[in-house]
């Protein structure tokens, strides 16, 4: 069963997609299919940093810089309202061993749509 529209999901923003020097975030963060995300209803944000670090910092030089958060219903609305190519987006649970909050956006997301999603992304820095 798909993840409810009421949930928020988190996407890891790493150094290959984010340039801290210029503050530019790459659309390829969401472009493509099977985009990996985490459900904040299962793993709260403060713990998601640790979970992401364990899973995404490969090689170790690839650094987790930020986390982008978006509501699932907002994501679906952006997809269906995308004029150039309305896209029915969903978030599907895909729990992994030791990572129960893992989920994916299975649909193929175009560059144009990825740019729309980026504009609605709530980008967080880790509070230390």
């Amino acid at each position, binding site marked *: 069963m798909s993840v409810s529209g009421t949930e928020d999901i988190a996407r890891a923003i790493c*150094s*290959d997609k984010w340039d801290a020097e210029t503050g*530019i975030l790459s659309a390829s963060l969401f472009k*493509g299919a099977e985009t990996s995300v985490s459900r904040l209803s299962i793993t709260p944000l403060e713990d998601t940093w640790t979970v992401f670090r364990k*899973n*995404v910092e*490969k*090689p170790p030089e*690839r650094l987790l810089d930020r986390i982008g958060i978006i509501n699932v219903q907002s994501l679906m609305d952006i997809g269906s309202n995308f004029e150039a190519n309305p896209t029915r987006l969903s978030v599907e649970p895909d729990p992994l061993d030791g990572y129960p909050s893992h989920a994916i956006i299975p649909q193929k997301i175009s560059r144009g749509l990825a740019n729309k999603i980026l504009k609605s992304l709530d980008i967080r820095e880790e509070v230390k």
Partner: protein
Amino acid sequence: MTVTDNPRSYHYSDNFLDFTDEPARSRITKFEPGNAAREQTILRKLGINGWGRWQYFRTCFSDQWGESKQRPLSPRSQDRFFEALEKLRIPKDSKASVFLTDEGNLELVWLDDADEQVQIEFGPKDFEVYIEGSGIDDQYSYDRLDEIIDRFFAG
């Protein structure tokens, strides 16, 4: 078929590295004599930040990476990136950067005079152009590279 019909009359086992492949197809990171020229190009066009990011991708992403075994930096994408970079006019004081996509492609992004994004992703066979200000969002084959650069970026 005779031996002379087939320049390679022997076979490699599946896990044996074939050094007779073109460098662009090899997974081995080798000394690349053209890199000095490339370093000058990227420094001139994208500054020290762009140069640093390219070096970062070259050295740290030459094998599978990330949570989903994303692809290593593609030599073909890199070749196309530099071919285009030589020809592109990127405003001198604009913010510009380089990214690596999950497919192993280099992606060039800069902000235009209106502070809106221009994005070009260099795939192995074609390139994708997104111009926020004019709503351009398209994919082209490389035989149209000069034409597209003249049309949108030669300024």
